[in-house]
């Protein structure tokens, strides 16, 4: 694999007169990096950096396959699902469409990274943004894989599974309704909303591959950014935060919500982490499980890249507050304590 780029870069270079382009820059970076490999490894031989870089690679290795799944679905929607089919399937009224989108989230098992390109493509195909955003929040949180993982992590406590399902679904639907009522289209970058024209039958596979590729390049960069931030925080956030929260339920809820954002765990793993914190009561753990898949630094980076910064800075904080509220209400109603 190491040798591939050289052979692939060759034709690109030959077809134009010499001019420094990104291909040359890439080759130069690779060359310098390979020559300086020894120095590089020395540099990373500090315990904190070593831990951080392992966590960074781990987050990338764990999340990228799900992002690939997401862009494949996105490409398939662009190529094979004409906008008019979606229009027929979804209710005309945004309020009702939000409910359908929330339940549709049950069908996409995968981490939150997969749902961002899919939600963006749904918008591009003319689905109401409120419904697409509901799907974005619901898909990683209420799918069967996540619910089973939660049940396994909390055996003998089915109320946790129920409360997580209710809290996450409520978060997604409430956010959808809030958007339908107050959301402004101009917050979302124009390129995310651009309608794809009808695809001719012979072009479907080409459109599929090209859409998936473009989405992957765009979202991948931001996923890496999110992984960088979350691995840095993973090393920097003192573990004592987990320890001192035993009795203070309000502080516990807030700290667990913040931790869910900064740790950016995959929604299939967070239940096990929450379960291992024996000192905490269940309600803060539930908040951790509802907030995590809805908003974290990795998702924020992905959303900022996909829908634009002015969207992300509005959407993420509101989601954070709504998710905490929904989790607490769901926890109290279901009887988690």
């Amino acid at each position, binding site marked *: *694999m190491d040798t*591939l*780029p050289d052979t692939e870069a060759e034709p*690109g270079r030959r077809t134009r007169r010499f001019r420094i*382009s*990104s*291909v040359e*820059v890439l080759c130069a970076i690779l060359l310098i990096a*390979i020559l300086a490999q020894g120095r*590089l490894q020395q540099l990373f031989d500090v*315990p*904190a950096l*070593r*831990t951080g*870089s*392992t*966590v*960074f*690679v*781990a987050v990338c*290795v*764990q999340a*990228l*396959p*799900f*992002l*690939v799944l997401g862009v494949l679905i996105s490409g398939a929607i662009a190529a094979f699902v004409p906008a008019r089919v979606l229009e027929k399937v979804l209710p005309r009224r945004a309020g009702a469409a939000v409910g359908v989108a929330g339940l549709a989230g049950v069908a996409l098992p995968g981490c939150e990274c997969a749902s961002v390109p899919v939600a963006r493509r749904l918008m591009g195909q003319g689905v109401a943004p409120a419904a697409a955003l509901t799907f974005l929040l619901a898909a990683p949180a209420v799918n069967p894989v996540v619910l089973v993982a939660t049940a396994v*992590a909390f*055996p003998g406590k089915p109320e946790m599974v129920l409360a997580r399902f209710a809290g996450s679904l409520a978060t997604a639907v409430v956010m959808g309704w809030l958007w339908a009522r107050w959301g402004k289209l101009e917050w979302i*970058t124009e*390129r995310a909303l*651009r309608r794809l*024209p009808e*695809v001719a039958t012979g072009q479907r596979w*080409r459109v599929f*591959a*090209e859409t998936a*590729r*473009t989405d992957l*390049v*765009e979202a*991948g*960069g931001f996923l*890496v*950014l999110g*992984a*960088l931030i979350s*691995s840095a925080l993973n*090393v920097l956030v003192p*573990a004592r935060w*987990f*320890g001192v929260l035993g009795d203070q339920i309000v502080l516990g809820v807030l700290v667990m919500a913040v931790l869910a954002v900064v740790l950016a*765990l*995959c929604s*299939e*793993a967070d239940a*096990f*982490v929450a*379960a291992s914190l*024996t000192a905490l009561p269940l309600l803060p753990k539930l908040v951790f499980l509802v907030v995590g898949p809805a908003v974290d630094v990795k998702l924020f980076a992905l959303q900022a890249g996909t829908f634009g910064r002015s969207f992300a800075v509005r959407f993420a904080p509101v989601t954070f507050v709504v998710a905490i509220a929904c989790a607490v209400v769901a926890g109290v109603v279901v009887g988690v304590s």
Partner: protein
Amino acid sequence: MKRETQNILLILLGGALVKIAVNGDYLRYVKPAQQPWVIAGGAVMVLLGAVAIVRDLLAARAKVAAGAEPGTAPDLPEAAGHGAADHGHAHSTRPAWLLLVPVLAVFLVAPPALGSDSVIRTESRAPSSAAAANAAAFPPLPAGDVVPLAVNEFVSRAGWDKAGTLDDRTVALTGFVVHTEGNTLLARLVISCCAADAFPVTVRLRGGEADHLASDTWIKVTGRVVPGTATKENSYTPDFTPASVTTVPTPKDPYEY
């Protein structure tokens, strides 16, 4: 960033994923069950990049054949209106450069599995299996003079098992050495998905045989638990009286699950 560069980056990144999934290094980062996902994800990435490159080359050749000026960015004319090609130029693609970071990290730095630094950094926590089991009955240990046990399982039994299935039984544990606050610990990291969610389980080694070993040295110890030493106050770190301490090579799969 040009299309060519993006495609090369995709191939590099996909190649990096496939490489670590095939040679087993992926076990430093994620759980074994992720392997097919990592391979498939990497392969699709390589494929998407390669297909785009081949298509661009064919389009460029067709253009040259048609007498057009060579060297202009190949913009799939037939896919007109679909917009992905020009769409790439409509806004900054600078973030795509970040795709290079994991490539360099995997190929050049190749970060090792988490070790003692991570244990010291993360407060040791109760194994989720034990916390979940809520002191439910543990089955008795299998017969035998020395029973090999996962550290996770050992700590769970030491902390929660009221029936005392560990008492007066010799067990064998494998883990790495951690020196902290004057104690020598045998530790193991437990992950449920990837290394980002790792948490340590630890055993305090009495007797001093392991004190001279460097941190992160992998050892196998046989010995017995000191009953009643795993408490909430010491984050469920039971004391262990080793009968033997031997260094072992780093296992291929460094985590417990």
